[in-house]
């Protein structure tokens, strides 16, 4: 049941004023912002998100949700792509700026206590919530393989971090500029075909996650997905971000963003 899915011991959300310590482009339209917010940084779990009030916006008022890419005792990092108003305005933030933040929010990945063979499947910026997961799995003694698809080599953001952390990485690019020429599901299908995968975690475009979930199901392997939805409150009150599941309508912001793939009733997207 999704309702039971909220992990024990996950921190309650806090409202804090974070300080921007750096904010830089890592490729043409992907940026990395670092925010100092010790209480949030030290309690956020892999797969959770924060809800940022991007202060420069006056006519567009809602907060923006972002997965946490990495966290230490003091700071969190957020990897973001310039896609619209909010992310453009976020890119204008400078070190020293203060930014209202609510977090940690949502239900993150389930991390087995016993060592497993995990397959992570990322599509583009879907890699963001997988980095903390890879680190946590590795700490727990699990082996981690990453199938990572992106349009171009330049957009395989952070791929070297996964390699350096000891993950087996298989890259796929739409233009063949790095790794296999083609969709990431080629790589995830191959890996699942070896029979050496115990659990699959995926984040990226929904059509890709749906395909990966189908591959995992066919291989008889558990799969968790991280779904993106437009949201207003981020804390479970407004019911904007619903995900239809076998247990009824669930909220991406509280019951998710991570769901067991078998529970999700996929839509037309």
């Amino acid at each position, binding site marked *: 049941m999704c309702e039971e899915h909220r992990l024990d011991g996950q921190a309650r959300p806090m409202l804090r004023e974070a300080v921007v310590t750096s904010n830089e482009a890592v490729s043409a339209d992907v940026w990395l912002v670092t925010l100092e917010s010790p209480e949030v940084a030290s309690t956020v779990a892999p797969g959770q998100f924060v809800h940022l009030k991007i202060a420069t916006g006056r006519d567009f008022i809602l907060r923006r949700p972002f997965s946490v890419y990495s966290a230490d005792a003091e700071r969190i990092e957020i990897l973001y792509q310039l896609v619209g108003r909010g992310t453009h305005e976020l890119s204008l933030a400078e070190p020293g700026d203060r930014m209202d933040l609510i977090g940690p929010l949502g239900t993150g990945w389930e991390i087995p206590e016993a060592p497993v063979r995990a397959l992570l499947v990322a599509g583009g910026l879907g890699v963001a919530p997988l980095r903390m997961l890879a680190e946590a799995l590795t700490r727990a003694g699990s082996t981690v393989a990453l199938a990572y698809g992106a349009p171009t080599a330049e957009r395989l953001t952070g791929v070297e971090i996964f390699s350096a952390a000891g993950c087996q990485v298989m890259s796929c690019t739409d233009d063949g500029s790095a790794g296999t020429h083609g969709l990431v599901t080629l790589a995830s299908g191959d890996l699942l075909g070896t029979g050496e995968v115990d659990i699959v975690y995926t984040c990226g475009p929904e059509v890709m996650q749906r395909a990966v979930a189908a591959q995992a199901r066919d291989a008889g392997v558990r799969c968790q997905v991280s779904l993106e939805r*437009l949201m207003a*409150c981020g804390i479970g009150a407004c019911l904007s971000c619903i995900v239809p599941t076998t247990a009824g309508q669930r909220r991406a912001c509280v019951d998710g963003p991570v769901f067991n793939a078998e529970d999700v009733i996929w839509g037309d997207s």
Partner: protein
Amino acid sequence: MHRVDMSVAIGDLVLANPVLTASGTFGSGKEYADLIDLTRLGAIVTKGVSTSPWSGNPSPRMAETASGMLNSIGLQNPGVERFIADDLAWHRRSFPQVPLVVNVNGHTIDEYISVVRRLDEEEGISAYEVNISCPNVDAGGMAFGTTCEAASEVTRAVRAATARTIIVKLSPNVTDVAAIARSVEAEGADAVSLINTLLGMAIDTRTFRPKLARVVGGLSGPAIKPIALRMVWQVSSAVGIPVIGMGGIASATDAAEFMLAGATAVAVGTANFVDPRTAVHIVDGLEDFCASRGIGRVSDLTGGLITPDAAANRDREEGSR
């Protein structure tokens, strides 16, 4: 600064302050309990409750627009029994001192009545807000709020079913909101609340598709404040019962505007999403607003608007003395 009496009365219900949460933006409070002190609120107005569970509308249900947002949630709720078992039980256990106003919905008048009768068996409810103005459901909802006859009929039926305070929530999607307010007043409503969202839409020009799956939805946020304020002024000029004003309120000065226009209390909606502390900030800000002007009671703001006509009359009266 001297102390300000922040209490206001809505029918028999006395609130510690005039700041409420708008239905549908605040759950029943539980979701906000980690972030703000709920005991600072004048009252919590719950998400809409219906007899049976409603699953709401397809996604996407939300779209941001200039200075506001559109929603087409469609009154998704788990039904009155689950509401009682979960939210009401939580409220009674955790914040019994904060007045709870339950927002009531139905596809038919019988459904409104059945929710109210069931809730009447339960303690811990201060009032009902009868929602005859949701633009996001096909049957019932706004249909009851757009004619005087239908609005009267629902109000009469709910009035006959309960002795508790009834607030009727009005739709702005009408030609003459004051006429509808007078109709529900005549049928025994203790107060009216307005405005619900304005029907609107938005289109994604990359895909040629509507931004909401239901195509149209309700517009809320600062974008609608001038319209809401105008309607609150019109309604409070037309009825004798208290008016609860809402629509784009995000600051204490916004709240003061609504009270000057005639509102006895105000509700904060979309601003809860932007900053969960907004309602509490407004409580503090309204107190400062009054204190700094030597106003001893916040209720003295209600209807304090000085229109050019009123100013001329006052000058005449003073001149004739």
